[in-house]
């Protein structure tokens, strides 16, 4: 009987917490690439966020997930949604670069991307369908290093899983965005990749057509594109949405 009372008390506490959370005003839901996990709440802390692999989020939106805004780590996925009439015409809101990271302890002694050819290295990457996974394969192809894909130990579902497994020291190396590496200072060593080999990493954002709060959703997009939004992105290490002319 006492256990029963305890259970009920737990349920009541949970319900109270839930109603307290729901009391805040109705908010929009933003589906955003995992690499935006830290910076988007800095730009606007009011929306509900769902971070994940952009491809997963796009698949969920196609199946009717209640997203108001879709921010992807590439332009292909929002463009596909646009062509299917599921979201507005996407605009590029920021850019990024790819880096190679190794744990601070560097158990495999990797000091350049060419060390990845050593056999037995545990290289962690994102799956091909994830934008960062596709960029990873592009950069390796540009450097004629596709053979290192033989050292891949896991195809993760988003960039933050790669980051976590390298930061933890379980994987010897992994490809992430330079902005991801900045979120775990002291845990990983960043090996920059040459500019000539970099793929074109552009982030696209669009308003989901099925959104019930299209105005608020568009306001969020405007906020991201605004001077303050862009400044927050730059501060987090993202690149200006338009490549500055030299």
């Amino acid at each position, binding site marked *: 009987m006492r256990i029963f009372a305890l259970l009920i008390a737990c349920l009541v506490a949970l319900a109270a917490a839930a109603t307290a959370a729901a009391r805040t005003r109705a908010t929009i839901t933003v589906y955003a690439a995992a690499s935006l996990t830290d910076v988007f709440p800095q730009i606007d802390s009011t929306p509900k966020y769902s971070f994940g*692999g952009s*491809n*997963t989020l796009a*698949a969920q939106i196609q199946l009717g997930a209640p997203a108001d805004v879709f921010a992807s780590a590439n332009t292909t996925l929002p463009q*596909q949604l646009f062509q299917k009439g599921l979201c507005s015409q996407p605009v590029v809101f920021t850019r990024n670069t790819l880096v190679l990271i190794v744990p601070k*302890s560097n*158990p495999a002694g990797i000091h350049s991307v060419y060390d990845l050819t050593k056999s037995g290295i*545990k290289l*962690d990457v994102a*799956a*091909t*369908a*994830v934008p960062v996974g596709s960029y990873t394969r592009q950069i390796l192809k540009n450097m004629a290093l596709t053979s290192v894909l033989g050292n*891949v*130990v*896991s*195809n*993760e*579902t988003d960039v933050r899983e790669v980051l976590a*497994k390298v930061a*933890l*020291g*379980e*994987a010897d190396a992994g490809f992430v965005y330079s902005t991801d590496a900045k979120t775990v200072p002291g845990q990983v060593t960043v090996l920059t990749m040459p500019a000539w080999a970099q793929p074109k990493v552009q982030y696209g954002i669009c308003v989901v057509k099925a959104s019930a709060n299209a105005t608020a959703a568009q306001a969020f997009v405007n906020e991201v594109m605004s001077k303050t939004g862009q400044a927050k992105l730059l501060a987090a290490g993202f690149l200006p949405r338009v490549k500055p002319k030299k």
Partner: protein
Amino acid sequence: MRRALLAGLVFAAAFAALAFLALPIVAIFTHVSPGKLASQLSNPVVTDALVVSLKTTLVAQALILALGTPAAYVLAGRRFRGRSVLVTLVELPLVLPPAVAGIGLLVAFGRVGLLHTGLPFTQSAVTVAVAFVASPLYMRQAIAAFEAVDPNLVAASRTLGAGPVKTFFRVVLPLARGGLAAGEALAFARGLGEFGATIMFAGSLRGVTQTLPLAVYAEFNVAGGFTIALAISALLVLVSAALLITIKLVLQWQPSRRTSPSRFALSTSG
């Protein structure tokens, strides 16, 4: 009149509950034509995942049987201080969120973990994850099955000159067989469906660590992979249903229930 209304309400609630449970299962099979589903099963992604799943599940079940059976026997036969703590420990993985199990395995067996093994990302890591989450289902049932064995029969066997080992194999094991088999089938089904701990601890690599549930998730994330994900799901539904039916059949001809009904499942703690 009120009684009829009440009966109607009960039936409506029952119908709602059953429909709710059946709907997702039905939808998996009706979303695309059965022929299209079946044709996806020959896709190399599916066959690779099937091989990984079978290999890791079978090894994990062998481990569970070999180590879990003696452990369950010890816990069932003895009353000692801290027993209920141990039983709770055995049952804990059952209710732990799989992500917690994954984190636990990483910090226990990871390169930077307690034991400093190189287990993560290997096929053995999948086996370990499956064994961790599935073993409580077997051990719970095994403890109950051993407790249900009539101690008089064990005592009789001993007074008739059989040693403890012979008694275990000739008396206890045959009597507990039904319960053990049912527990094992449940553990097998749970192991086959393991997802969260595996993806965190072992990662996902086709042909190495990508099991059937991981392949469902990976294919769901690939453009055009949805039908393959559906096909694997359908396969897992069928296998899981077959396992559940097996359990029911096994429990029906379980002999230990009939040997000593008065002593059945008499447990003082746990």
